């Protein structure tokens, strides 16, 4: 079993009356609710938390892309990937991912992912989501009817850019390039492992099965509701005669560990409420642009994650409901061990995207949650899928070949009553770059 510690990077200070006063946390949320000084603190807290997860032995650190959104403050997750590459050592950088239909030319994504892979010594997981309707259609203006075709073309171009040894020309419908010549190229050859985050589109299952990509179902509704989608994916895999390898499925789950079940409720309930009632408060008209979901997905009865339907399902839910229905797996280490093991078995899932900072949760609580999980739960679940090979994790450079950031050594001096910070020694003296 592998564990990716996933951060959404929410804005923690939406007002109490947010849901009544504003129609949406996404797309047209008023700009004056964002304070960049608070944002400065949040980004740094959140990077601290990801770095802490690396120290605690998680396999991956997960980030994703959202636009004009108060629960996901990462329009560019690659920037967070770059920051993490320098201050983490072991964990993989799971960028889930870049919405490749949005970038012109999509080669940009191939380049930035190659940069991250090189910078991190081959620790990158490249995620290619289609992107939500809010992000792609409403914020970035993509035409719903052609988004998936554009995505598919961007995918082909990126893979070719990574794998083709020579300069080539690309004559696509959406992108035309005379010279495609990727500099730098990724450390992982032929390319970093590819994970496809999805919200339940039936086409994505076929796409993952056909390309042997990992499918990551990023649900906010927990493993009980998620089972329908996981089963749909495994049915497609079985029909196509593919190995039902648990590592080819990733699943996002909110997990909250405390010393006892009662303590978990006391500590985490307010933050769950913040997440579900403020962070996921999305105007129904933005939930699903016509043509974003294909007719076959609609016919398959997969429910949208946000909007009116989703809000109705959550209406009036208490902590007990969230726990009982699996939205959150919470409680003492023992409770979480049992419940989460059961959940992963029922989904046949080998890659958990664990959400341990949720909503308004403050840093000290995130640390407690993360540490308890790493010490008391994770070791007990490690052996869940022995016998299966994880073909979807990065293959980084061996330790001796990896570059280390030079140690920082600042000197603070008082000059005319001001504090001045200077580097004590030129960086190159302590560096071993060749």
């Amino acid at each position, binding site marked *: 079993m592998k564990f990716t510690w996933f951060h959404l990077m929410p804005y923690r200070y939406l007002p109490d009356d947010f849901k009544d006063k504003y129609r949406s946390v996404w797309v047209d949320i008023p700009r004056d609710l964002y304070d960049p000084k608070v944002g400065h603190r949040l980004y740094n807290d959140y990077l601290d938390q990801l770095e802490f997860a690396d120290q605690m032995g998680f396999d991956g650190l997960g980030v994703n892309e959202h636009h004009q959104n108060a629960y996901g403050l990462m329009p560019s997750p690659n920037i967070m990937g770059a920051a993490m590459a320098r201050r983490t050592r072991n964990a993989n950088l799971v960028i889930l991912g870049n919405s490749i239909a949005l970038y012109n030319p999509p080669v940009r994504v191939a380049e930035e992912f190659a940069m991250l892979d090189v910078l991190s010594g081959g620790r990158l997981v490249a995620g290619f989501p289609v992107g939500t309707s809010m992000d792609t259609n409403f914020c970035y203006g993509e*035409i*719903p009817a052609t988004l998936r075709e554009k995505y598919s073309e961007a995918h082909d171009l990126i893979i070719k850019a990574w794998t083709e040894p020579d300069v080539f020309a690309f004559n696509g419908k959406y992108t035309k390039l005379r010279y495609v010549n990727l500099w730098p190229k990724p450390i992982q050859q032929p390319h970093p492992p590819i994970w496809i985050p999805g919200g339940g589109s039936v086409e994505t299952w076929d796409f993952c099965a056909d390309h042997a990509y990992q499918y990551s179902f990023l649900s906010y509704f927990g493993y009980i509701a998620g089972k329908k989608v996981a089963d749909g994916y495994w049915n497609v895999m079985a029909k196509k005669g593919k190995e039902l390898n648990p590592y080819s499925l990733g699943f996002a789950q909110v997990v909250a560990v405390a010393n006892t079940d009662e303590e978990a409720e006391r500590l985490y309930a307010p933050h769950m409420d913040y997440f579900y009632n403020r962070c996921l408060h999305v105007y129904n008209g933005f939930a699903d*642009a*016509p*043509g974003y*979901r294909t007719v076959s997905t609609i016919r398959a009865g997969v429910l949208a994650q946000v909007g009116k339907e989703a809000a109705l399902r959550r209406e009036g839910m208490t902590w007990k409901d969230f726990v009982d229905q699996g939205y959150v797996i919470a409680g003492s280490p023992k409770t979480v061990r049992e419940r989460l093991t059961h959940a992963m078995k029922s989904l046949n899932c080998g890659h958990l995207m664990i959400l341990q900072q949720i909503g308004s949760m403050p840093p000290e609580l995130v640390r407690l949650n993360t540490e308890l999980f790493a010490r008391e739960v994770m070791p007990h679940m490690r052996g869940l899928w022995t016998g299966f090979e994880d073909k979807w994790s990065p293959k980084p450079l061996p330790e001796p070949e990896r570059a280390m950031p030079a140690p920082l050594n600042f000197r603070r001096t008082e000059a005319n009553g001001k504090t001045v910070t200077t580097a004590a020694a030129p960086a190159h003296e302590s560096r071993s770059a060749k």
Partner: protein
Amino acid sequence: MKTIQKVRGGKLAVEVHSFGNSGEPLLYLHGAGGLLGVDPFLDELGKDFRVIAPHLPGFGESTGGELIDDVVDAALFYHELMDELGIASAHIVGHSMGGMLAAEVAALDVSRAKKLVLVGAAGFWLDENPIPDFFALDLSELGSYLFADPKSPLAQMFLAIPEDMNQLADMYVERVKRLSMASKFLWPIPDRGLKKRAYRIAAPTLVLWGASDRLIPPVYAGEFTRHIKHARAQMIEGAGHMLPYEQHDAFCTAVRTFLKS
């Protein structure tokens, strides 16, 4: 009368509704909601004209929507359809999105339109008068943008939601099919460069607008008369965006008078 007309050797199959069989041909291009099946103004115009109302591919039973990506594809499709029907030129009446496409049909081949009637037409964008985001509107909000009187029986019928879950699902799927096609011309802003081509339109043009249109405000009529050489605008009181349905008589009179003059 409903027929299925094959176009491009059968790659597209078009559901065509015809009204009347005498008089000059009149091609009616529907808006993003499609033909409703109950379109009394078409019956009325059928008394004086040979009315031909095709469903754009992706709407109704018409197929081949995947072959149409943009307004140029759509205009060429209508040219082809006219060829298949043996109509070299016709009066062309277009409502909303259909008005935008009618203008493109007339601009890209000036021989196609004898006279042009654009009704609450899309196709331009004014920063100072933005068109509401039609795609993001909830059904509960839609009425107040489409109708002068959203409480009228007509509006209520239009906005009714079936109680049967299967019917509701079918309605939802149809809506998605229609609007995803419409999004190729209208998303995220309904400007696909008509302002560069509209000067080519040679046909005498009547720009009709519901005086209470809250979806595409009447100020947009001025953009059409500004860009099209032989155009004049006429406002109709007591109507919103759904003018042909809301003020059926006034609408038919205006169209008939203009086309017969």
